[in-house]
């Protein structure tokens, strides 16, 4: 299938309820696609139910029916942080001509202790949550294992990834950290959250929504690869906690469908809920061998002016991470890059892009490959 249009709200602290954020993103996407809502055949949305929020909304599909004034089929496909990617994966298989995919999340409605508790529920209940292993903790254990095994990689490399993403967000008007410069010193000296991860290794919670219109009709952006794979919930139950099979399987299938190699990718949006996740993904996606990501980071391979820019939008770290909307915000960025509409952060001659979305600590992974069709 093809992508007609994309839209997203500015990520940040918003006073609006989530249905209004979804409405705003949809208006922009429909405008970009030059299509009226009448011509949409179905809607796939993604959003989570929160316990401590002001929203108290469980039946989001019907709420969207009220907001869009429609009776068309609407389903909700949540998947922790991979909701956006999962919704797009489902939307392509429904068999309709024009499908609206929208992801929305409103996180900033309670104090940060409550938000930490909410995120913790994506971990295993009796084995991890009761032992105090919250979301940063899960990833911190993986980070420590990685740094122990591959001694050439250090926290310096993690800080470089964070710095890269912040430098990119400086140029993205939709990002949370737009216009707010952050130096490498600040990143390296920020307080420890869950050792060895510091404040600037962790992505930032925001409110936001993103939408896109997928269609059977030929447009300039074709989805040439799309796959989803679920994995064991706790990282320590997997055979090798440093190889996230969800990424390996879904990206292998996506590359096969697309008929391309990792070296053909011009620009990528890689899930960086924590800097270590982005680093491990470089290897699992096939951009470098296991344990050797540090070489490419030092070369600047993934920088904006490097061989294959990654997270030109600022990534989850600096653009913001509204859980279910992230996957679609990644699609937004790739489409803008392929269409030459990314302004200050444009990658030259981008033809093939990849969007990689992870749920929880690797429990669900989606991989989408988009190609610019000329003429």
């Amino acid at each position, binding site marked *: 299938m093809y992508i007609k249009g994309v839209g997203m709200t500015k990520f940040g602290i918003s006073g609006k309820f989530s249905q209004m954020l979804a409405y705003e993103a*949809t*208006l922009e996407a429909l405008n970009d696609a030059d299509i009226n809502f009448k011509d949409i055949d179905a809607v796939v949305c993604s959003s989570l139910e929160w316990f401590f929020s002001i929203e108290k909304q469980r039946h989001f599909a019907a709420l969207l029916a009220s*907001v869009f*004034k429609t009776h068309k089929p609407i389903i909700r496909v949540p998947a922790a942080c991979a909701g956006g990617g999962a919704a797009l994966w489902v939307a392509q298989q429904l068999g309709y001509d024009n499908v609206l995919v929208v992801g929305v999340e409103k996180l*900033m409605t*309670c*104090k940060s*202790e409550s938000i930490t508790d909410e995120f913790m529920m994506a971990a295993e209940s009796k084995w991890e949550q009761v032992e105090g292993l919250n979301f940063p903790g899960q990833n911190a254990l993986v980070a420590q294992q990685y740094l122990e095994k591959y001694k050439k990689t250090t926290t310096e490399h993690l800080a470089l990834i964070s710095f890269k993403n912040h430098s990119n967000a400086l140029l993205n008007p939709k990002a949370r950290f737009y216009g707010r410069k952050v130096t490498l010193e600040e990143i390296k000296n920020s307080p420890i959250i869950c050792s060895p991860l510091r404040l600037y290794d962790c992505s930032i919670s925001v409110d936001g929504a993103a939408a896109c219109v997928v269609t059977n009709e030929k447009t300039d952006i074709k989805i040439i690869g799309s796959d989803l794979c679920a994995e064991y919930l706790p990282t320590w139950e997997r055979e090798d906690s440093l190889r996230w099979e969800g990424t390996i399987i879904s990206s292998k299938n996506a590359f096969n469908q697309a008929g391309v190699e990792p070296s053909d990718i011009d620009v990528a949006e890689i899930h960086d809920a924590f800097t270590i996740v982005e680093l491990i993904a470089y290897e699992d996606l096939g951009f470098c061998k296991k344990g050797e990501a540090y070489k490419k980071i030092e070369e600047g391979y993934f920088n904006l002016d490097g061989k294959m820019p990654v997270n030109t939008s600022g990534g989850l770290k600096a653009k913001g991470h509204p859980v279910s909307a992230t996957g679609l915000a990644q699609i937004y960025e790739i489409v803008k890059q392929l269409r030459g509409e990314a302004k200050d952060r444009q990658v030259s001659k981008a033809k093939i892009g990849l969007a990689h979305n992870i749920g929880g600590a690797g429990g669900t992974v989606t991989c989408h490959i988009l190609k610019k069709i000329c003429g």
Partner: protein
Amino acid sequence: MAKIIRWICEKCNKKWIYPISRCLYCNGEIKKQIGMKIKVIGFTRIHIPCPPHPIVPYNVLLLEDEYGNRMPKKTIKDYNIGDTYEDIPSKEENAIAITKIKYDVYEAVKEALELIGDIEVDRTNKILIKPNLSIPGYPYLGIGTHPEVMRGLLRYLIERGANPKNITIAEQSFFFPFDKAIAKSRINQIVKEFGVNLVDLSKTEFIEKKEREFVFRVSKIVYDFDLIFNVPVIKTDMLLGIDGAFENLTRFLSKENFNEFVRDIKKAIGALAVLPNILPRFITIGDGTIGMQGNGPAEHGEPGFYNMIFAARNPVVHDKIVQEVLCLRRLPYVELAGKLGIGEYEVSKIKVIGNELDAVRRDIKQPIGSKLIKKD
């Protein structure tokens, strides 16, 4: 004076129960449709409770207005099908209005003020608005007066003829820098948007006022205004029970004066109770858009999500009803103020308009470990 709101597209006439910006189908302009001739077309009496609605049995009416728009409404009183549903406004001292917010804070503030008899303003009135911005915090946490309530109140006043140049927002913070509080709460944006004045009370001159055995040092500027709005944010508080109408007045005093009183609990209760007597008359608008529950702002309290606006001409009436709605133990300074005749304290003599008291009572996280509140 109950209202049913809809947002409708002028071109294609589709109706929404949410405030959207543009029509999704025809890009038309959106305008508000408010129905005020309301009839009861159905009702159900519910016998099973849940924490936000603990008092059973209660009724939920199905109301319909002259445009055919409907909405449900909770009451304890019984109604029959075909009855007219309306609220009668009252200008009396012992009246308090409680309105619920339906995605439009301006409408809720407007209705609350109309239910206590409307406010008359003109270009010459000098208006003072006192929000609670003592602790810096983002609006979504409910720590300070919500900018939407300020926006709604300013719109209401300016539409009725007030001159923005004659409106002043004044506040001070005893423990935090004033600029930080103003910026984080987004009030500075409001000041710019409406072109009103902003004053840091800690930089004003304080004059001495005596009441009974207490010596107060109160900001001089309070006496320059002829219309004053006290706009506290409804928070539970470990020390005082609630941060309501009375607590918000403490920041009219100088910091040293305030510190004298808090050292001695008995003195604090006595002083707080008579504080309204040394100030000119004011109207209290309680900001319950989000508010706080639990141990209050300083000790890990959390947002309350009350979704209500209170409005009263008397602070004793306001704080007493807030205490009843949140099912808290009695507040000694409010009870004392009632005994001294500053306002009506008996619930049976207070007129609650807009929503019934038993219909809005709710089960919230109580403030525990309070030093001031004795067990009943």
